[in-house]
C-alpha cells in the first residue's frame, strides 16, 4: 500500500509524487491534507493533497525539499511504499459560487491552492490567479493553475518572470484597477498571508488562508498546531487548515513555526553528512 507510482521534479527542489491511496483519493475534498510517515523512525509530515484521482486511486503530493524528511522523501524511487498515509484530514474548503475569486499563491503554497482553484472554477466562479516565487523556476504549477483560472498574473522577487515584486503588490494593483473581488484565497509563506490579509482587511474583502503550523497527529489530539484566531485558540488540523485570514494572529504563527529550528538543522545536517558518506561509498565500490 501507499506506493509511489510516479515522481517528477517540477522545479528545482520541488517534487510531484503520485501515491497510491485509494480510500483517501475517494474521500478527498479541496483544502484537505494527509499525514505521511516514511519509515519506522520517521516523523509525521503533514502535506496538502494537490489533486486526487478517485478512479486511479492515487493522490498527488507536491513536496519542497526543505528539511531532513522532505529531502529523504524526494530521494525515494518510484515503487517505494510509504509506511503510512493518513487522511484526508482537516475541514474541506467551503465551495460555492461567490462571483470573482482571486487565488493568491506563493512558492510551495501554490500546491494546496490548486485543488481549491479547481473547485471554485467548477462551481462557476471567475477565478483570477496571482502566483509568485523568488524566481521564475519557483513559480510552480503554472499550467495546472492556468487550467482552473480565467486570468493569471505572476510576480517574482528578482523580476525574472512576470512583474518584479510580491504577490501582494499585484493584488493591490488588481483591486485598484478593477475594484473589490468577492473573495480572496491566499496560501503561501505565513508572512505572505499576513501581508495579503492586511491589504484585504483595508479593502474589506473576505479572505481565506490555509495554515501550515507544526503538527504531530493531525486529528486534534496534541494541540501542537494551535493558532490564535479571533482571540481564541484553534487547532489547524481539525478546525482548519483554512481560516478567515483577517482573524488569524500571524505574528504568533510565524514565531511558533520557528519552535524547532535548531533541531531541524541538526536533523538536516546529520542526513546530509550521512548521505554524502553513502554517495562516497557508492563511488568507491
Amino acid at each position: 500500500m501507499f506506493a509511489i507510482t510516479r515522481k517528477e521534479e517540477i522545479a528545482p527542489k520541488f517534487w510531484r509524487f503520485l501515491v497510491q491511496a485509494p480510500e483517501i483519493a475517494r474521500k478527498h475534498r479541496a483544502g484537505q491534507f494527509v499525514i505521511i510517515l516514511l519509515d519506522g523512525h520517521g516523523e509525521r509530515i503533514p502535506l496538502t493533497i494537490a489533486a486526487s484521482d478517485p478512479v486511479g486511486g492515487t493522490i498527488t503530493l507536491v513536496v519542497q525539499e526543505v528539511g531532513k524528511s522532505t529531502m529523504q522523501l524526494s530521494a525515494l524511487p518510484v515503487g517505494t511504499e510509504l509506511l503510512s498515509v493518513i487522511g484526508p484530514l482537516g475541514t474541506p474548503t467551503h465551495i460555492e459560487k461567490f462571483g470573482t475569486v482571486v487565488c493568491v499563491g506563493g512558492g510551495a503554497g501554490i500546491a494546496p491552492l490548486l485543488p481549491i482553484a479547481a473547485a471554485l472554477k467548477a462551481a462557476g466562479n471567475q477565478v483570477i490567479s496571482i502566483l509568485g516565487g523568488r524566481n521564475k523556476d519557483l513559480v510552480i504549477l503554472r499550467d495546472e493553475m492556468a487550467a482552473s483560472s480565467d486570468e493569471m498574473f505572476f510576480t517574482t522577487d528578482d523580476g525574472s518572470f512576470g512583474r518584479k515584486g510580491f504577490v501582494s503588490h499585484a493584488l493591490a494593483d488588481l483591486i485598484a484597477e478593477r475594484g473589490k473581488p468577492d473573495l480572496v484565497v491566499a496560501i503561501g509563506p505565513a508572512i505572505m498571508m499576513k501581508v495579503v490579509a492586511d491589504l484585504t482587511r483595508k479593502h474589506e474583502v473576505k479572505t481565506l488562508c490555509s495554515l501550515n503550523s507544526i503538527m504531530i497527529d493531525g486529528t486534534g489530539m496534541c494541540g501542537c498546531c494551535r493558532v490564535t484566531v479571533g482571540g481564541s485558540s484553534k487547532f489547524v488540523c481539525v478546525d482548519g487548515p483554512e481560516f478567515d485570514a483577517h482573524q488569524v494572529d500571524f505574528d504568533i504563527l510565524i514565531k511558533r513555526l520557528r519552535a524547532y529550528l535548531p533541531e531541524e538543522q541538526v536533523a538536516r545536517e546529520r542526513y546530509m553528512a550521512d548521505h554524502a558518506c553513502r554517495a562516497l561509498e557508492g563511488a568507491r565500490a
Partner: protein
Amino acid sequence: MTEPIQGLPELAKKDRMKIPRHPMPEQEPLHRVKNFAEVALGYTAEAAMQEAQRCLQCDKPLCVAGCPVEIDIPAFVDLIRQGDFKGAVSKIKETNTLPAICGRVCPQEDQCEVVCVLTKKFTPVAIGRLERYVADLERASGEIDMPECAPPTGHRVAIIGSGPAGLACAADLQKRGHQVTIFEALHKTGGVLVYGIPEFRLPKEIVDYEVENLKRMGVEIRTGFVVGKTATVEELFHESGFDAVFFGTGAGLPSFMNIPGEHYIGVQSANEFLTRVNLMKAYEFPSYDTPVRTGKRVAVIGSGNVAMDCLRCAKRLGAQEVICVYRRTRAESPARKEELERAEEEFIDFRWLSAPLEIYGNDEGFVTGMKIQRMELGEPDASGRRRPVPIAGSEYDIGIDTVVVAIGQSPNPLATRATPGLELNRHGCIVVDQQTMMSTSLPGVFAGGDVVTGAATVILAMGAGKQAARGIHDWLGRLERGEATKPTWPSKSA
C-alpha cells in the same frame, strides 16, 4: 516454564500472615532518571511463590469483586504458590486478555488489593505484581496459550480505536467467531498504551506482543485509518459491510488552562509532550526524526497520573529542575500513590497549593516564566474535596522554559461528530445503556472506555470493552434472527 518448579507448601493462616509483602525490585532513582528502561524489575520465581503463599484463600474473596474484569484471583495466586505459573496465567486469561499490561498499570491499591483481608492488619497480597510475573514469564517462554475461537459466524465488527477498550472488545468478539477489524487513526496500535504511557512504566514491546497475539487470533488491524475522515460509520455499515461498530476512541482531546501566554513556544499539552516522547521516540532524536522541547526548567501543571508521566519523562530528558504545580495538596492528588512516590524519589519539586496565573515569554515567543498564586484549602466542593482558594497577595514568579499542561483530557469529537444521531452528553461523552451492554442511541453501535466515562483507567476501559463485546454478540444474534436492522441515515444527496 517447561522445567517443573517445586511449589511451596500451604501454610497455616497465622503463618501466612507472618510473611512480609515482597517488595518490587526497582532501578535506583539516581540511575533510572537517566534512562527510559522500566523502573520495576519484576519478581523472581521464589519471590512470587513466597508472595503467593501469603494469600489467605478466603471463602468469599473480596478481591474478585474488586476487579473490574473479575479475575479469579485466589485461584491464580494459589497456582503460583504451587509453582504452576502456566496454569496461573491461563486462569487470569479466562477473563483478562492483557495481564502483562494490567499487572503494570492497574490501580490495584484501589481495586483488588484495597479489599484484601490482609490489608486491615498487615499489607495486601501483591496481586498486580503476581499477575505481571506470570504474564511476563509466559511471554518470555514463547509458549503462548492461544484462546480457542468459535467457528466463524460470518459477522463482521468494526472497532474504532486500538486502546484498551478496543483491544479487549476485539479479543472477546473474535473468540466468539466474529470477524473483527480494528481501525486505528495513529500509525501504531495500542492507543494510550503506546502514545501516553511511557516506556519506563509499560515497555512498548509488551503492547506489540499483545497486539501480535490478537492478529494471530485473526483480528485485522488497519492503522492510519481515521474513522470520520477516511470512512464514516455509515460507510462502514453500508459500503464495507460491517454488522456492528464499537467506539473505543478514548479521551484524546487535550484541555488547556486558558490563561495568558499559553501560545508561547515551550507550552505544550501532556498529549503533545507524551506523544512526541512515547509514540515518536523523541528521546532518541536525532536517530528518530521527531524532536521534543524540554528545557532546563520544566513546569508540569496538574498532579494526576498523566502529570506524573510528564514529570518523570522531563527528568529523563535531562531537565535540571522539574516542578509540579498543583492547586490542591498531595492528599487530593488524583495520581496513584505508587506513581507519586516514584516521582518524589526522582527529585521532582512538588509545589502543592499553587495555581498558575500567567505564562511569560520573550520577544521571540519562547516561554521564560510563570506567575503562580498560592492557594489554601477552603470548604469541600461538589467532588467532596476541599476547594482551593487563592491567598490574596501571594503571587510569585518562577523562571522556566517549558510548560506541560496535564489538567485532563476529554473525548476527541472527530469520529463522533461525523456520526449523526449518536447521542452525546454535555462533556462530549457517548451516552450508553449499561443494561443493554453499552449500546448507544444508534442500533448496532456500541461504545466503551474513556469515550463514555471521560478519562479513567486502562482496566475500566477493558472491562467496558468486554461488556460491549457481550452486547455486540447479542445484537448480532438479533440481527441474524431478523429482530434488528442496521442503522440508516438520510441520503446526503437529497
